């Protein structure tokens, strides 16, 4: 289909990022309270736009066993996808595609991109997910997390990822790569296959649109 719409979205998102980006990283021009330190950690932080995936109530646990909110990734573009730990073929491919997408970003901006791999199998323990990190050689930019059946169902539905547990304990699922802007809004997505040009462009645009000075992540 037309490459124009996603491009327009990316431009619009980048513009919004430039306009509102400063607000998202600490200053709170429109809201009275909300301590800046908590802004990136709490998914309910009022700085997030209503359409942010980070505004969803999705409590997760990362592969170190610590509580994890997707909102912690606010401030930089994110590639997010959902997999399950015991997945034999499809998920390793999906992880590889996610990493290919990140590597397609020009080196100057690549470091800004974070990756979130969320398991839709509630039985994937943090230790098991950590095993995936080792197995696939995933670096610090990649966040692995899992959650309750309810939490992952909400996230998957918001990302329009379909999955079903099969009688043998495996999962049937769609393979979807999604690019989120620094405020957690969906700017581009692709179902199946290696990342295509539209998805790559959307991520590159997001990564290049640097809002204000660099900051330390809390």
């Amino acid at each position, binding site marked *: 289909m037309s490459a124009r719409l996603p491009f327009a979205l990316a431009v619009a998102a980048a513009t919004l990022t430039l306009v509102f980006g400063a607000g998202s990283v600490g200053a709170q021009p429109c809201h009275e309270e909300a301590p800046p330190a908590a802004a990136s950690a709490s998914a309910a932080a009022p700085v997030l736009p209503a*359409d942010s995936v980070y505004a969803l109530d999705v409590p997760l646990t990362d592969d170190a066993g610590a509580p994890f909110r997707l909102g912690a990734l606010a401030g930089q573009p994110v590639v997010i996808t959902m997999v399950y730990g015991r997945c034999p073929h499809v998920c390793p491919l999906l992880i590889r595609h996610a990493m290919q997408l990140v590597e397609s970003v020009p080196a100057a901006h690549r470091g800004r991109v974070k990756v979130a791999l969320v398991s839709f199998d509630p039985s994937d323990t943090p230790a098991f997910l950590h095993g995936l990190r080792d197995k696939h050689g995933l670096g610090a930019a990649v966040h692995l997390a899992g959650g309750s059946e309810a939490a992952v*169902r909400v996230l998957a*539905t918001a990302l329009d990822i379909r*999955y079903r547990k*099969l009688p043998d304990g495996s999962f*049937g699922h*769609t*393979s979807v790569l999604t690019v989120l802007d620094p405020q957690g809004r969906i700017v581009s997505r692709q179902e*199946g296959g290696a990342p295509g040009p539209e998805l790559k462009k959307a991520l590159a645009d997001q990564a290049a649109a640097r809002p204000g000075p660099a900051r330390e992540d809390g």
Partner: protein
Amino acid sequence: MDRRPQRPRKRAAGWRASARARVALITALGAVVAPASAAPVWVAIPAGKVRPLIRVSEEPKADAQPVAPFRLAARPVTNGEFLAFARAHPRWQRGAVPALLAEGGYLARWAGPTTPGPRAPLDAPVVEISWFAARAYCEAHGGRLPTEAEWERAAMAGQTHPDGRDEPGYRARILGWYAERQPDPLPAVGQGPANYLGVFDLHALVWEWVDDFGATLVTADAREAGDGPSAAFCAGGALAATDPADYAAFMRAAFRSSLKGRHTVRNLGFRCAADALALASPRAHQGGTP
């Protein structure tokens, strides 16, 4: 001992009577309780099995999916009930819900954010509701959305038989409803006959959200999007269908698969479910299947 030969008949009559009594009780409760409070009237659904639409293994019987006992609301949620919820939770009012959680048609037929108006009678099922909103409603009422297997398990019951497939006219009745034009405004919930389990409107009035709505046609090893179960659609037939005659179930699955969580559809409502209450002997309450 000497009455032994009579027992089966007596029992059967007893079950029928108790099913009727249950329905009457539910109806009475609904009439009394519904206007004052939006608490769902639950019907206990005994454990059962549903057959998956698409065969997973070579042996269809092995695919039968067990469904644990659960509770299902006797009727779909009404406009009046959703109004009470929207008043108590303004973030679910029309105009306040972000597009991520509900598309533009959300409660579009309502006259205003807290005014259902003439096109949405208070006792009619609420429609144009997103999955996220339906889920939030059920959570606020101590429940959840039913899973697809739970919904199908309850909807499998006929009016007089625990399994509608044993009942003449069961499938024709469902397809007949599917073929009908939807009245506008919709009529009140709970008007038709309850099914064998005491649940109203499963095959009437509106289609209903289930928690795992999008996954029926997803199978293992769908390497690419839309790969899907090729045997299910091969040659336009239904080679992997467990029961190709069950068109109605296919229609439901196809409809559900077409949905996204933010969608709002004018003939799509919902009802809540909840886990079974922990009873000492749940069997004593349920009409067992012979």
